[in-house]
């Protein structure tokens, strides 16, 4: 019993980690219908940005968020306005190819600048302490914090979409970029702002990623894979769906890991395929393609 509870708990925490990674991808997907293949690499880039900030200013990695998040947001705006806006439209291939190219460029630039050495954001005791509830059930503070951050970020963004004028503009531009112009919005600007928000969450995800594990320039693509699965399981355009999708993925993997450590990843992929087969639109889809 304790074993089962611990498995579910670890799965949920793992899901929190995936959720934090997936928010930015889900946003770009939901608003721009853009599959950002470089998403994982931007997460790693954010981790390096946090590393540079921490080293230069001697801050705690969590305080580095104050710099990393706005910096990533600006980068997101620039990337969308300068590059991706030219490529999005009816055909999703050009944008896909551009982000694929970005992925290669980021990985190799990071390799050139930072070498292949493994790095980590030193958060002192935070990354190695935990709490034990009962025999066999325990969890780390940091994974719990990751889960809470993911949930709070998603909650905040959902409120923002629902209540703010800009949030409504995001939803409108997602439904029909041409009509939005009639309402006085420049869809290029709106898209770029949406990407800035997505990249702000990538900044959070990257910093947490860097505290949670060691990273090197090659670790982007594996992060993309899980984030992508979480978004698809949850359904396009729904951030709560992404959180739910991450939980499904995390718990499926945790159960697999318990049965045999070789099966964890497989169970995650299997859950993804089953949901894709049974409910191709995902659990809680919001955007619909005309």
């Amino acid at each position, binding site marked *: 019993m304790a074993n089962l509870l611990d498995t579910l708990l670890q799965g949920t925490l793992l899901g929190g980690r995936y959720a934090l990674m997936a928010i930015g991808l889900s946003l770009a997907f939901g608003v721009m219908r853009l599959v950002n293949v470089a998403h994982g690499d931007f997460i790693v880039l954010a981790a390096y940005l946090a590393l540079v900030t921490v080293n230069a200013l001697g801050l705690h990695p969590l305080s580095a968020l104050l710099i990393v998040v706005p910096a990533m947001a600006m980068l997101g705006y620039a990337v969308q306005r300068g590059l991706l806006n030219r490529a999005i439209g009816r055909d999703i291939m050009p944008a896909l190819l551009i982000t694929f190219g970005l992925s290669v460029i980021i990985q190799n630039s990071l390799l050139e600048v930072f070498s*292949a050495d493994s790095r*980590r954001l030193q958060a002192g005791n935070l990354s190695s302490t935990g709490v034990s509830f009962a025999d066999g059930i325990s969890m780390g503070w940091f994974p719990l914090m990751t889960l809470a951050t993911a949930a709070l970020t998603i909650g905040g963004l959902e409120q923002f979409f629902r209540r703010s004028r800009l949030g409504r503009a995001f939803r409108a531009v997602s439904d029909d970029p041409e009509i939005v112009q009639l309402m006085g919005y420049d869809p290029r600007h709106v898209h770029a702002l949406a990407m800035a928000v997505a990249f702000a969450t990538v900044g959070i995800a990257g910093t947490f990623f860097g505290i949670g594990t060691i990273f090197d320039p090659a670790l982007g693509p594996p992060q993309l894979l899980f984030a992508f699965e979480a978004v698809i399981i949850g359904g396009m355009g729904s951030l709560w769906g992404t959180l739910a999708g991450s939980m499904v993925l995390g718990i499926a993997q945790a159960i697999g890991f318990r049965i045999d*450590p070789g099966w964890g990843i497989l169970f995650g992929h299997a859950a993804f395929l089953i949901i894709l087969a049974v409910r191709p639109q995902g659990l809680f889809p919001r955007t619909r393609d005309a």
Partner: protein
Amino acid sequence: MSNRKARGPSRRTVLKSAAAIGAAGSAANWTTALHAQSTRTLKLGLVTPRTGPLAPFAEADGFVVEAMRKLWVNGLAIGGRSYPVEIIVKDSTSNPARAADVAADLILKDKIDLMLVSSTPETTNPVSDQCELEKKPCISTVAPWQPWFFGRGGKPGTGFDYTYHFFWGLEDIIGTFVSMWNSLPTNKMVGGLFPNDGDGNAWGDKTLGFPPVLAKDGYKITDPGRYQNLTADFSAQIQAFRDAKAEILTGVPIPPDFTTFWNQALQKGFRPKIASVGKALLFPASVEALGDNGNGLSTEVWWTPTYPFKSTLTGQSCRELAAAYESATGKQWTQPIGFAHALFEVAADALKRTKDLGQPAAIRDAIAATALDTIVGKVEFGKMPPFKNVAKTPLAGGQWRRSSGKYKYELVIIDNSQAPAIPVADKLKPIT
């Protein structure tokens, strides 16, 4: 050179003086004259994981290749002639399929004379296989010999025709680890962290790996099974180790996975007395990435600046080579430096002894007859029947300790049970 099998004193003397001149690069006129005689360029292909998760293994390659290019700027002197040497470096991107591809390119397009390959079975095996297939001589290193030999379907006695490998074996690391563990009182319960890759499968193998040997010494191993590399969650393994009350941790995870594991283990209150881990803890950067939690972790040592060997190419001692690396790169020395250097020592030595450089089989014969005192110890094939393609180099045990010096951690040699020639500095201390 002095350990080479003698082939008549006159030839050897000629080679020696030629090598000396080539290395010194001072007799410019003479070497230019030699250039005129020989138009043929010797091409060496080098495949290593320059990028990707295995990249720390190839960290020293740039430095070593640069040093070789400088050393051979006037060519490599062979039998009184000087041959220009071209070193073509290819990146496996830590991907076995890519490693095989670039190896095929080197053989078929670049028409290399000799293949050199290094760093984990994921690199050495596909490249060696490709060479065997194309009948191209290949010298391989930095992978325990069992995954290299058995992982490629090698049969004792028959072995391989064109591919040769020098490194230590699982018997050495098991012997070293057990000897380290015996020096401290524990309950002899061991947790094993073996991934689903060439190394993990070899280490965890029920008949050829850790389990049978450990059982003989009274250790009981808990092995929850093979996991995928880049796993995000190790709570299942941690739970299993805790249930078994393991006081010793061992395994062969890749560096990012060990960090994830170790942090999750500490979060969940699992802190073994001893953690002797291969692969993940070889590099100072990986240990530094653990912050203060890296103190007391132990690992295998293939090469350190305190090894008592010298280079046959430059005459540098281990300490001098490590110092040259540190001053050239501004980074702390790392174990692969010695092997990257030794790979070129073995290659140069074999080429110098080759009877007909145009014949791959002749180069192969020269490799097979290698008996050379390199910077990583003696490399001699044919000493380990029935495995004629394998030569073993010495392996010691080391522990990472916090240092007050220039770098955060230093690797202290704590066990030489398998290689008594290596000086020991201290004994294993429990993790506190």
